[in-house]
């Protein structure tokens, strides 16, 4: 049992060392290897931008801008942070700036007023079992999950994406989005519970109907 874990650790170490070597190369001015450095994170960068902007075209543009900014500022990167976290934080900054430019102050103010009101009560209490990860092989399942995420209010979606999809920790999420740790925790709770109810509703609508689950039970 120990051998596969060891193999995984070795693979992670090799990847980290390769990444550090690439960072050093770019910091010395060898810009042509920058894409190789960021390629493993390009989808995460795009997803972070999309979570904030909710528009594919803007998200792609901001993702590219963020990468260029990272390239221009690569000498400021210090190894205390993970490179991926640094990239995501730059992306979130760029996306928030873009959104501020494009939205009126009035719209911001209206959104701000609707702050985490009250406790959230779950609606569905059916028996849950683990959804097999194979479900995600199907594009329509991924699409339905993305649609469910898209129905969340902006502030819940942003926090959920940063914490649960981008794997930033609570503190990093708070710093990236410029909100308090307490707000992150409150929004994360609501986002997770709302998505849980949405997925339960999705089951009723047949999102996972072709999955090999037992008749009469939900897949969770």
């Amino acid at each position: 049992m120990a051998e596969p874990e060891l193999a995984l650790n070795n693979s992670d170490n090799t990847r980290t060392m390769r990444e550090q070597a690439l960072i050093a190369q770019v910091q010395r001015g060898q810009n042509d290897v920058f894409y190789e450095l960021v390629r493993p994170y390009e989808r995460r960068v795009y997803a972070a931008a999309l979570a904030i902007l909710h528009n594919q075209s803007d998200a792609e543009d901001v993702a590219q801008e963020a990468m260029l900014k990272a390239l221009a500022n690569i000498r400021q990167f210090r190894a205390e942070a993970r490179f991926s976290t640094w990239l995501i934080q730059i992306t979130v900054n760029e996306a928030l700036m873009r959104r501020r430019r494009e939205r009126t102050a009035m719209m911001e103010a209206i959104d701000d007023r609707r702050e985490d009101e009250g406790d959230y009560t779950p609606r569905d209490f059916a028996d849950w079992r683990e959804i097999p990860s194979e479900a995600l092989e199907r594009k329509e399942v991924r699409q339905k999950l993305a649609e469910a995420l898209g129905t969340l209010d902006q502030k819940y979606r942003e926090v959920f994406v940063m914490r649960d999809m981008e794997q930033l920790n609570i503190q990093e999420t708070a710093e990236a989005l410029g909100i308090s740790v307490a707000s992150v925790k409150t929004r994360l709770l609501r986002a997770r519970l709302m998505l849980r109810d949405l997925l339960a509703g999705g089951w009723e609508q047949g999102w996972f109907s072709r999955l090999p689950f037992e008749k009469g039970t939900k897949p969770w």
Partner: protein
Amino acid sequence: MVNGQTVNCEQVWREISNYLEGEVDAGLREGMDGHFRTCTRCASVLAGTRNVIRLYSDERMLEAPAGFGGRLEKRLAHGARVPGRKWSTWAAWLVPVAALALFAVGLQWTNIEQGAHRILSPHAQPGDKIPPDLVVVVAADARIFHVPTCDLVQNKTNLRTLTAKEAIAEGYVPCVRCLRKYLQSASLKPEADPDADADLDVAEENPTRAR
């Protein structure tokens, strides 16, 4: 061992996210664990929330549009060849600073030019180096004051005697011949030709003779 707290469903729903983050204290965790064993509703909430986190944290949920990587690579390649963005950050400052410097140099040059022309004649030198109580003479029809022994004094029959201070106050200018030693220190020009100065004095005092 910490005794587990007794918790109800509302407390569980409020803390379930922190529970999954491992951010509840040992007592609350034990109380929630006990609650999940007996409450099917909360066990359902826990299982469903775990599913949500597990599904969305899967790499496959991070999708980008078709061709995104290629377009990104192209843009980065262009950005890498032209390090313009970084350069332009300080160039944006450099341009107005350079313009300001040029303006300042131009202004200084103008001042120098104006300064060179400001004092055209030794007659126009300030007379403030001349001892104020020095006795000087002026002719009634001239604008220059002299020491009484100056050879250039014209019309010696109609002279008025006064101090240098009074002469300056009345608008007379010093004679460059007899008062040269006082004027030289203030002059911007190198020492002027005494003959030219004398001619000038004469011209001022006796326009007919100079012609």
